[in-house]
């Protein structure tokens, strides 16, 4: 029972912390973000397994985490408002080529970050080639180019 309680507590704690942290936390923009993600996973390991390094404990913890994740997914699908609380919603940053300043300010984003994403995913050179830019639930930025760009 210990395994299930620990895993459940850690799952909920991580969910809450990352929701508070915001969409762009750990979106792995830089190498440092990636390293931070690894360190966080290390920090949870000891709490999950405690001093028990048996196969049984490991399997129980993994099973609990996967089951909780499925339940959260199901509840988010079945009750969309709950899904909103758990996962958040996508936020439009650039609409029809027009930069939405207040949205960018809320998420502490600047145009440079959107352009970086535009360069790496779409090969876009400048901001006037962007039709829509959306901050997805995952923290990644999706960029949709204008159809008639050369």
């Amino acid at each position, binding site marked *: 029972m210990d395994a299930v309680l620990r895993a459940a*507590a850690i799952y909920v704690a991580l969910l*809450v*912390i990352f*929701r*508070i942290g*915001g969409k762009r936390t750990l979106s792995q923009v830089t190498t440092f973000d990636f390293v931070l993600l690894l360190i966080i996973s290390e920090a949870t390991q000891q709490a999950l397994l*405690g*001093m028990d390094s048996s196969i049984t404990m490991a399997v129980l913890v993994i099973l609990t985490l996967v089951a909780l994740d499925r339940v959260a997914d199901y509840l988010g699908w079945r009750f*969309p*408002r709950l899904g*909103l609380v758990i996962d*958040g*919603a*996508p*936020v*439009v940053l650039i*609409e029809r080529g027009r930069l939405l300043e*207040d*949205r960018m300010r*809320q998420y502490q984003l600047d145009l440079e970050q959107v352009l970086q994403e535009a360069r790496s995913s779409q090969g876009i050179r400048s901001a006037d080639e962007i*039709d*829509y830019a*959306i901050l997805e639930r995952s923290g990644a930025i999706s960029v*949709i180019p*204008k*159809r008639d760009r050369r």
Partner: protein
Amino acid sequence: MSELQLGEQERREQEPDRRRRAYIAQLAGWAVAGLILVATVAGLTGSGPLSWASASGPLIEIEYERFTRRFGDSSLRLAVRAEPSDPGTVRLWLSAEYASKLNVQQVMPQPDSWTVARDGVVLTFPSADGTAKVDIQVSPDHIGLLRGEIGVPGRAPVGIWQFVYP
């Protein structure tokens, strides 16, 4: 070129008042996280100024951490005096339940003996001047309120309470 297609709920979430609500919720979350961090630095989860407490009783003074964590490192610092009738030996008594939950890692200085008494354990330390400063490293195996009694055998013990976070 076609309009961006968003789901029903996603479209509603773009409205300014929804955005503001989300922003305020975010700030509230940050405030709570900040409070937790400040409380931790102050010692409310252990090892900080708000955590150390002291208690004293006949022939004994205790310094201990009010807040600690399960399987975390903590210590009890005791200043014990010997009975006037036997100044060469300092004796320390811990209640049985407390000793078992404390999960003692190390006692500095090493006691001469651990003796199981009626309702606790007695540690004896040889002493040159009738006093002993004892440092007990513990790693509590308990969650929640932990009540303990520490004292000198034959005298009234001191009751302390600690809170162990899971």
